[in-house]
């Protein structure tokens, strides 16, 4: 076990604060650097064909070109709009439906089986139906993301509510609190860790689905950009798009995690050794 402030590489030795910061940076950079070296090496030594995989240097150069030309910003802006709309729609519907199923046995009987059957269906399998219902413009792309987010958030909301200590609800009933008051004052706050975890997972899934959504008659968006680059064997562009999605995904996850920590600041949770 390594306690906080102790070196991972030199366990048992307490380091000065400045060294600890450097050490943190080094620890975080070790795996990405190792991956970059493995990537470069596998292309250089022909383990993967250069016709399909560009080197990190080529990808960095391409990324730089795409940033300077403004092409990347245009694709990213389009994708972020789709992701945000789909996430908000699916997240809000997931919390609402999940809360209803969580508090009402009738709702569980009415909706539970349908949700259980539909949840495992891969969201991409909905594409032909979404085209028929919502056409080939923005709506079908947003709905595809929303469907994926919806099921994850619903499942986590139901689970969160159903794991609330029954005694808290009984105390509220003794104080003559209404069902709405119990939901808003006790169940939802107590289920918040699970709901926020659902939203965080939903956001991650949203990025995955964005790529699938942008296969529907798109001509802009970072997912479409990757698809188009793969279609026309442009590995520089394809990997630059993948790096871009990775960075953006990590950034949105960081924002979500910060929001989660802020909302759950009352929690005295285990933060790792």
């Amino acid at each position: 076990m390594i306690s906080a402030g102790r070196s991972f590489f030199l366990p048992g030795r307490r380091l000065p604060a400045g060294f600890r910061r450097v050490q943190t940076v080094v620890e975080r950079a070790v795996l990405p650097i190792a991956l970059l070296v493995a990537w470069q090496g596998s292309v250089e030594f022909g383990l993967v064909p250069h016709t399909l995989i560009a080197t990190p240097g080529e990808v960095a150069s391409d990324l730089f070109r795409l940033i300077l030309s403004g092409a990347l910003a245009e694709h990213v802006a389009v994708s972020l709009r789709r992701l945000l709309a789909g996430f908000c729609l699916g997240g809000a519907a997931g919390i609402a439906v999940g809360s209803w199923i969580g508090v009402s046995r009738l709702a569980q009987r009415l909706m539970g089986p349908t949700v259980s059957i539909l949840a495992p269906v891969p969201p991409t399998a909905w594409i032909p139906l979404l085209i028929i219902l919502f056409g080939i413009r923005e709506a079908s792309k947003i709905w595809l993301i929303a469907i994926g987010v919806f099921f994850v958030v619903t499942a986590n909301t139901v689970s969160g509510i159903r794991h609330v200590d029954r005694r808290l609800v009984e105390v509220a009933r003794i104080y003559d609190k209404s069902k709405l008051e119990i939901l808003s004052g006790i169940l939802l706050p107590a289920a918040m860790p699970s709901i926020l975890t659902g939203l965080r997972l939903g956001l991650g899934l949203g990025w995955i689905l964005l790529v699938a959504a942008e296969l529907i008659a798109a001509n802009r968006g970072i997912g479409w950009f990757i698809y188009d680059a793969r279609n026309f064997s442009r590995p520089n562009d394809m990997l630059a798009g993948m790096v871009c999605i990775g960075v953006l995904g990590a950034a949105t996850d960081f924002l979500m995690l910060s929001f989660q920590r802020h909302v759950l600041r009352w929690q005295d949770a285990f933060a790792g050794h």
Partner: protein
Amino acid sequence: MFRRLGIFGCAATLLLTGGLSLPAIAAEVTTVGIGTFSIAIDYSPYLVAKQKGWFDQALAPFHAKPSFTQFETLPAINEALATDRLDVVFEAEPPVIIAKAAGIDVHVTDLGCTLPVDILVPTGSKIRAINDLKGKTVAVLAGTSSQYGVLADASAAGVDGKDIEMVDMAPPEGKAAFESGKVDAWAVWPPWVEQEIVAGRGSTLEGGQATIQSIMAIRGGFEDRNPKMAKAIIGVEEHAKAWVAAHPDEAIAIVAQEAGLDPKVVRLAWPKHHFSVSLTPDVISDIQRKADFLFKRGLVRTRVDVDKDLIRQ
């Protein structure tokens, strides 16, 4: 005790010997990867040869056997070629141009069939001719002969390509969009075209001149190492083309069965397929126009000289 150990020892030795010799036995039979993209009636010679076991017969003298794969996406074909997992492919010409532009070692070795580019419009549509497509939405898979054909035919009819909204859709999504009226037209190939016509949902526009060249391509490394095997495979394709042209009724039945299609659909599409074709200068020029189209639109970064770099007869 010793006898029992001896028996176990013999069994273990036999097992080990057998296990070690397995890869050696397996290595004696070479597997030739043969692939196609999606479903298309222009692969009829290939489908007939596959069904009749002609590839197996041709490869048997080389201690080789074919392994057939139907790819559903175009990039997967080029990825399989680049990683030596696919040796022969039947497809239209743009994917192989894209592969060559990306530096993948592949050559066009034969022409299977030539057919016109079709543009479908819904039954009762006001679009009657290609110049009516101005301002309309057309579903088409980007980078295909169909996309090239729409732009080439539109240009010939005096319509600027910029005035047509092209939406990039693979055939299954294009079908959903077309049948639900979300697009005004759909540029696609048989049997998708004839399925809509037979169902009474669509008809094709007349007057287009653009064509699709359905080619057979062989991975360069495979051909260099196995020139006789490559020649035998080309021989199968040539034989199958002649047979298909001479026995249309039987070929239609085989293609319908192999591709899982309604024979009515195959029969309707049959007359537009020309199997008595070869890689003539005219065909090579047509493929070159498509290579230039892909390069000028920035879809590929290298211009392919078709005659010099791509064709190997």
